[in-house]
């Protein structure tokens, strides 16, 4: 296809559904970073995120025959990635909650004498980890991946109204958690 524009997701997804592994590889190359980011920001752990991203992409290949509208490949893939990451979070919670899973966001690291720099960035990660996972994933998809409410609703299997509510609550809690940096 040299010299031609890259085919849209729908075309590649249909080819992949026909068993074309090169088309699937093109989709993987196109979306791997976003899939990894969703996993990393949900899990806040590089190795777990790498595993989750790999499993999500392999799951996408296995479930491709079930994808009815190939043009919806991206939200469909994000949904697989989000669910995979949330399952890992649940598995962690089942094996004993970690401090970052506590319901109250960790507000301990104050900014005293700390320039606004990597400290703020880390505080955001920490605050995100303190959010309930459904709020966390909605906020990540809206603010970090730029998805619309309708698309997020499709990814997390909720109504757009529920998504709006979750993002609103996530913002409120994040603002509270970052209050020491004000």
């Amino acid at each position, binding site marked *: *296809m040299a010299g*031609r524009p890259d*085919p*849209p997701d*729908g*075309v*590649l*997804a*249909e*080819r992949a559904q*026909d*068993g*074309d*592994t090169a088309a*699937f*590889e093109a989709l*993987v*190359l196109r979306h*791997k*970073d976003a*899939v*990894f*980011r969703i996993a*990393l920001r949900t899990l806040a752990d*590089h190795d777990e995120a*790498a595993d989750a*991203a*790999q499993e999500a*992409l*392999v799951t996408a*290949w*296995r479930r491709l025959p079930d994808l009815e509208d*190939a*043009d919806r490949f991206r939200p469909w893939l994000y949904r697989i990635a989000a669910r995979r990451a949330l399952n890992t979070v649940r598995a962690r919670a089942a094996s004993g909650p970690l401090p970052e899973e506590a319901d109250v966001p960790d507000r301990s690291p104050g900014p005293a004498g700390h320039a*606004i*720099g*990597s400290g*703020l*960035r880390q*505080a*955001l990660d920490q605050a995100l980890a303190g959010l309930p996972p459904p709020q966390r994933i909605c906020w990540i998809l*809206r*603010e*970090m991946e730029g998805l*619309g*409410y309708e698309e997020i609703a499709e990814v997390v299997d909720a109504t*757009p*109204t529920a998504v*709006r*509510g979750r*993002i*609103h*609550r996530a*913002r409120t809690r*994040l*603002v509270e958690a*970052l*209050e020491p*940096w*004000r």
Partner: protein
Amino acid sequence: MAVNDPDDPDLLPCGESVDTLLRRLRAGRPSGHERTCPHCRAAAEEFRVLSAAQDEADQETVAAPPDLVDQVMRTVRAEVRSGGFVTLDAGGRGWTRMRREAVAALLRAACDTVPGAAVGRCRFTTGPDGVAVDLTARFTGEVPAPRLADELRRAVRESALRHLGWRVTRVDVRFQ
């Protein structure tokens, strides 16, 4: 976006949605209203630190580990779904078979030479009267659909005859 939905928890008293406000502020393009409205200004101040944290996060390029694609594709190739083989005419001197996916790839490659269309699905049935091909296509240019479909038909017919010795009797094209 239901900016006027009264149930929207993100709605400011002035009717502006926090989501819209934050998006414009982060893009550095607040509207005239947003610059002067006290509700919008208060919200902007409330979310200032969170927005700054997001800006920092945005500047970080988070890329997937370099071996992710290889690991995924190794599994994918090991699990490849094969639709089986088709037998090509060998004139009684042995047999020639070709994987159905390879046939589809060949026909799609022929379609790739037609400007203005991207072909996704390519399925075919072989019968005593010849071969019928079913394509899905999306427009990538300005060529009108009937002409584009005819050019795809011609490309498929020629390629099938030249490379497979097939007489294609029918090519259905579905534009998506």
